[in-house]
């Protein structure tokens, strides 16, 4: 039984003051025909030890653990989590604090989120970032809604085929009843969004062009050219960054002309945790600030002129604007955004590029080794970051199954999402994959081909 502090004596004295006899009398506002006349159908309460054992057994039914070699990316990345993070976020001031509606006693949370907004701006090369959204995919869908709002009468959106398939599905869910036409832009042979197709599809109806950076196939897109095309036709350029560590190595989307940058911050200190909670981010240019969805923290002064932070621009939000609000999101990812702030502060401006280069060199080395194996090839020539596609001599599913016997999760089977790539396998390498793991992956792939 959890924390229920009342003694029987206290309960009676409280009831007496209220002027009723029994606790049941407090529920007199609920008509009898609405009442449940039996207990809820749940087992007896579990003691903490039993509960822990139960959950441990459930967790143990998942076969993959840290002894496996894992090369899975595809939008969620296995990066090292500095030990300081758990310690810092477990402090009750962050962990159990209420939403900072009372800024005078919530400066810790508010400053941490203000720093998050600043760091996201610095990372993406943008001017304003919000306090976070649920995840990268919903941030992408919110960005599309925002572009449609800003684009007034425009009702078409171009989604690159290289955009994460999950992100594309989410955009489709969000706009399903809003009368929006979604169009897919194909990829060229080098794995990047086809600029000729973009030019052909762009017209005065298009509100936004959306690509990944790097895209789902690990390829670094030519944002500058795409943004130029989008702008020439009056559309907004939306760039989705599923692996923000790449921004430690490649030029920021803001610098390259993006109007809205969205992404997933999970890479920065959050565990994989079966896909959540992560943390979505969104950053825009100053001109679009008042169209941003979600919470925002701003700097101000108190009665003595001392600097402090508050939730601000609430007139965009649903409590006040009701159905005309910029979004229905009424929270942010709170502590997950704080994790990102702590992670980026720990790595610093030198550590982040260093880690990015480390990921890039491991991935490039592994790509080269696999390409040299008989039957394997790299279908795309454009630059990569820490993820790349391999075309395999046998169906990817067979290769994955075989490598599972050796406790290797070799990558993501692309057959269902990208049937045009022959036996496509998406392989991701991070600092968690040491030389021994890379060697054993190459050896295992080679073994099967022979």
């Amino acid at each position: 039984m959890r924390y229920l502090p009342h003694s029987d004596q206290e309960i009676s004295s409280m009831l007496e003051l209220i002027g009723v006899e029994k606790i049941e009398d407090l529920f007199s506002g609920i008509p009898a025909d609405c009442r449940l006349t039996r207990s809820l159908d749940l087992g007896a309460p579990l003691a903490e030890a039993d509960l822990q054992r139960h959950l441990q057994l459930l967790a143990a039914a998942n076969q993959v653990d840290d002894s496996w070699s894992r090369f899975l990316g595809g939008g969620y990345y296995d990066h090292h989590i500095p030990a300081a993070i758990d310690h810092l976020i477990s402090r009750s001031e962050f962990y159990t604090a209420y939403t900072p509606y009372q800024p005078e006693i919530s400066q810790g949370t508010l400053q941490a989120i203000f720093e998050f907004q600043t760091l996201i701006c610095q990372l993406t090369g943008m001017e304003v970032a919000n306090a976070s959204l649920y995840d990268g995919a919903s941030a992408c869908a919110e960005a599309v809604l925002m572009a449609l709002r800003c684009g007034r009468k425009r009702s078409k959106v171009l989604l690159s085929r290289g955009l994460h398939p999950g992100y594309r599905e989410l955009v489709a869910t969000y706009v399903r009843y809003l009368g929006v036409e979604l169009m897919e832009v194909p990829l060229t042979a080098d794995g990047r969004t086809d600029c000729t197709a973009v030019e052909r599809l762009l017209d005065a109806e298009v509100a936004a062009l959306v690509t990944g950076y790097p895209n789902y196939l690990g390829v670094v897109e030519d944002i500058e050219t795409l943004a130029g095309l989008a702008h020439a036709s009056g559309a907004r350029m939306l760039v989705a960054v599923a692996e923000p560590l790449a921004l430690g190595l490649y030029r920021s989307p803001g610098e390259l002309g993006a109007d809205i940058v969205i992404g997933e911050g999970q890479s920065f200190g959050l565990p994989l945790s079966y896909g959540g909670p992560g943390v979505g981010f969104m950053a825009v240019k100053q001109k679009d600030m008042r169209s941003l969805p979600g919470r925002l923290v701003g700097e101000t002064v108190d009665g003595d002129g001392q600097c402090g932070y508050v939730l601000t621009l609430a007139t965009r939000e649903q409590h006040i604007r009701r159905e005309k609000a910029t979004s229905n999101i009424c929270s942010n990812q709170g502590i997950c955004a704080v994790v990102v702030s702590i992670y980026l502060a720990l790595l610093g401006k030198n550590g982040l590029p260093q880690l990015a280069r480390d990921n890039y060199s491991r991935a490039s080395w592994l790509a080269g080794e696999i390409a040299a194996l008989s039957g394997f090839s790299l279908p795309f020539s454009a630059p990569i970051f820490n993820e790349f596609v391999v075309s395999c001599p046998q169906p990817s599913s067979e290769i994955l199954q075989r490598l599972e016997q050796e406790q290797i999760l070799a990558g993501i089977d692309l057959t269902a999402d990208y049937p045009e790539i022959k036996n496509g396998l998406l392989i991701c390498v991070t600092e968690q994959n040491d030389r021994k793991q890379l060697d054993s992956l190459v050896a295992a792939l080679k073994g099967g081909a022979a």
Partner: protein
Amino acid sequence: MLMIHAWHQAQGNKRHKVLIPDTAHGTNPATAALCGYEVVPIASDGVLSAEAVAAAMDNDVAALMVTNPNTLGLFESNIREICELVHSRGGLVYCDGANLNALLGICRPGDLGIDVMHFNLHKTFATPHGGGGPGAGPVGVTAELEPFLPLPIIVKEGETYRLDSDRPESVGRLRAFASQFGILIRAHAYVLSMGAQGLKKATELAVLNANYVRARLEGSYHLPYKERSLHEVIFSDIDLPNNCHTLDVAKRLLDYGFHPPTIYFPLVVQGALMIEPTETESQLALDEFCDALLAIAEEAKTHPELLHQAPVNARTRRLDETLAARKPKLRWVRREA
């Protein structure tokens, strides 16, 4: 709401409107609008009447969105009749789960005629607030709406489980991965550790606490709705003298060392002070809190400047929210040398 839209579409219905009472949760209108609906507000006098719903209910209404108990802490006592009415005219009823912690073990929304409901795990099932997130909002639906649930869902086959994404009527994915999984585990652990009796006990104590605060403060603060409160009680600032308002009371509470309750919500109460103690506060803590509020009511009469100047004991003095909104500074920038 997407599921409601998909259900209507599957029936061949073209309905454009959603009814939302003024006592529903604040985010409901925005949610309806994002799902392509026009919002029709309904006035209620504390508790929504079947007549008010009947007057607004026509063949163009897809759904009613209610919050039960509503944001005044009152049980929507006509809910059964209202659900039957909406159903009889071809609509569905959505219930916002923000206040479910008033009802665990007491009544079940599904038995009342609710078709879709979401649950706020941080409000009812003890997941950490984290300074504003992450929250998680699983939804429950009737069997009729089950085919429309978002993707994927987990199905059990024999002794094994698998993810099922092959559901043609689904509204589609709402997260790229498995959503706020870590939060769901925490809520699951809470439910298992409480059991049926623990959950009901938590509800009873939450309601006891709210009514205790009400009994101690009634007379010193204006109580606009006299019906029996459930888990929260709402006062108004209309009786406060000397130009003292709810904001001043909240800021003065900081000086007494208390986190103020939600203020200026719901909108139907002028200067609302929405007190929701939950089950975890002891009588001693509630007494200290009420003593502080009673002292503040007294100060409003005799030393109103104490309220207007507050807070003086917090980390900062009162922060200028108007300035923050008028000249937004949303990130740090290096000062020019």
